[in-house]
């Protein structure tokens, strides 16, 4: 009964991992025979600061996305955590962006932010801010990209926070009210501490999710300008299909996998904490 599943797992999950490690020790361009080079690929990644640049770009995009979507998701959850049709409608609207493809969202925002005729650019121009070219400047591009990701994934954070809010017993909040706590006090001293495990969970899962971003980068910035949005997966893709350096791409994929493992460890830790409360 389990055999077909295990065969697929072995072929497409565990075997590729081993092969990735094997490739990473070789120089191979897919055309000529592979040549063993030891740890050279890893050394090359570290040497030119290439890996550091990629990690920095990934962190800029990811942290903007995670901080923004977590904060916004929490605020939205507090706002729509009520019965009624309007609140349900708002919940669905916000969450819909999470279901639509990254390609759709990327193209949509590329158009809205278009310097010449984009609606959002035009709107900001009218209000006196120059947003034209936020994606064209290396100082702003990773953050602009991060904000687009916020728009896409805030609904995910909102849904998880709603789950967290609904698991808080009403009696706890009522007791605080009876004790004379103000609304802000209740939020910061009762609701927020009780949401802490959900908060940890939302941030770690969003971090893992946004670390894997590729589609939106490929569609919106192609890693530029000046490599400012060359995030991990985009860089691996580039090494593989533009430079035909399978070994280098594999070495980077192995490093990426180890980082994801670390983040997952963080997630499990957060999950334990959620279970404990």
């Amino acid at each position, binding site marked *: 009964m*389990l055999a077909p599943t295990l065969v697929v797992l072995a072929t497409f999950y565990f075997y590729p991992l081993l092969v990735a490690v094997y490739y990473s020790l070789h120089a191979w361009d897919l055309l000529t025979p592979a040549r063993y080079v030891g740890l050279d690929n890893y050394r090359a990644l570290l040497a030119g600061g290439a890996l550091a640049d990629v990690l920095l770009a990934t962190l800029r995009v990811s942290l903007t996305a995670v901080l923004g979507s977590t904060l916004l998701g929490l605020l939205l959850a507090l706002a729509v955590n009520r019965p009624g049709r*309007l609140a349900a409608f708002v919940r669905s609207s916000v969450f819909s962006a999470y279901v639509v493809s990254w390609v759709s969202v990327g193209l949509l925002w590329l158009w809205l932010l278009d310097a010449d005729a984009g609606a959002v650019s035009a709107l900001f121009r009218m209000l006196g801010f120059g947003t034209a070219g936020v994606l064209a400047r290396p100082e702003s591009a990773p953050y602009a990209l991060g904000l687009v990701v916020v728009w896409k994934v805030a609904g995910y954070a909102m849904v998880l926070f709603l789950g967290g809010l609904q698991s808080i017993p009403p009696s706890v909040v009522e007791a605080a009210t009876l004790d004379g706590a103000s609304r802000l006090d209740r939020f910061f001293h009762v609701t927020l501490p009780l949401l802490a495990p959900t908060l940890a969970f939302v941030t770690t899962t969003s971090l893992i999710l946004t670390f894997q971003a590729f589609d939106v980068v490929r569609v919106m910035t192609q890693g530029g300008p000046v490599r400012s949005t060359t995030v991990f997966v985009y860089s691996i893709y580039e090494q593989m299909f533009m430079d035909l350096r399978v070994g280098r791409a594999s070495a980077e994929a192995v490093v990426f996998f180890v980082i994801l493992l670390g983040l997952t460890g963080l997630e499990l830790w957060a999950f334990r904490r959620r279970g404990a409360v």
Partner: protein
Amino acid sequence: MKARPLSVPGGIGLSLVALVWLAPYAWMVLTSLKSLPEIVAAPLSPFPSTLRLDAYRAAFQSMPLARYVWNTSVMAFGIAALQLLLALPAGYALAKLRFKGRGVAFGLVLATLLVPAQVRFVPTFGLFAELRLTNTFTALVLPFAVSALGTFLVRQALMSVPDALLEAARIDGAGEWTIVYRILPPLLVPTLISLFLFSFVFHWNDYFWPLVMTTDDRVRTLPLGVALLREQGTGVRWHIVMAGNVILSAPVLAIFALAQKRLLHAITASTS
């Protein structure tokens, strides 16, 4: 938390929030109905002077979009169906059968969540290239035949199915495969629908895997085509790009509107 009745400013505020998410979709549709001169002349005027479907016609003329829609549907349907077919026996074995190594097997299934496609694609591409299988549906579908989430959800749902029911089926002469494919599916309808929709939408949307595995129009999928609409030709013809984007996102939004609860069930389970 106790819900307070919504005040008028509160209601307006909430409506504005919805607008931040809905207005971009509306803009996408409106843009797709305009002409290029209109778009450039007045970036902020919402409505086209006359309703025209030229952009859609141009999108279909400039690339084999119908072919892409068909390819995407076949791929997404194939993956979703295969995942159900494999998750049923695997979930059954993990929930109801006693054998050595069950815990290890379950651990292996869950461990696949740690190995995303973004890590697997380099060696998998190498494998398929050696077998001359890039540019085939095999390369698009087979690597996703197993869904850890699917196996997990089927297993969870089966935990609450009483053993006595399965015992009764066995006494009536049902073999194990009959149980898996005849007796279980009717009991698991909500879970199976959730899974199918989740998987279909996920792979309908997927850009990364088809991008790295295909170069040939015969197997390329819709997200690739729509993204290409922007890259081709001189100057970006946004009305055509948005027409493509409507074709890409409308089915997903429709599924979401009709089956929001089912999708949410799978999405929240997929992360916890």
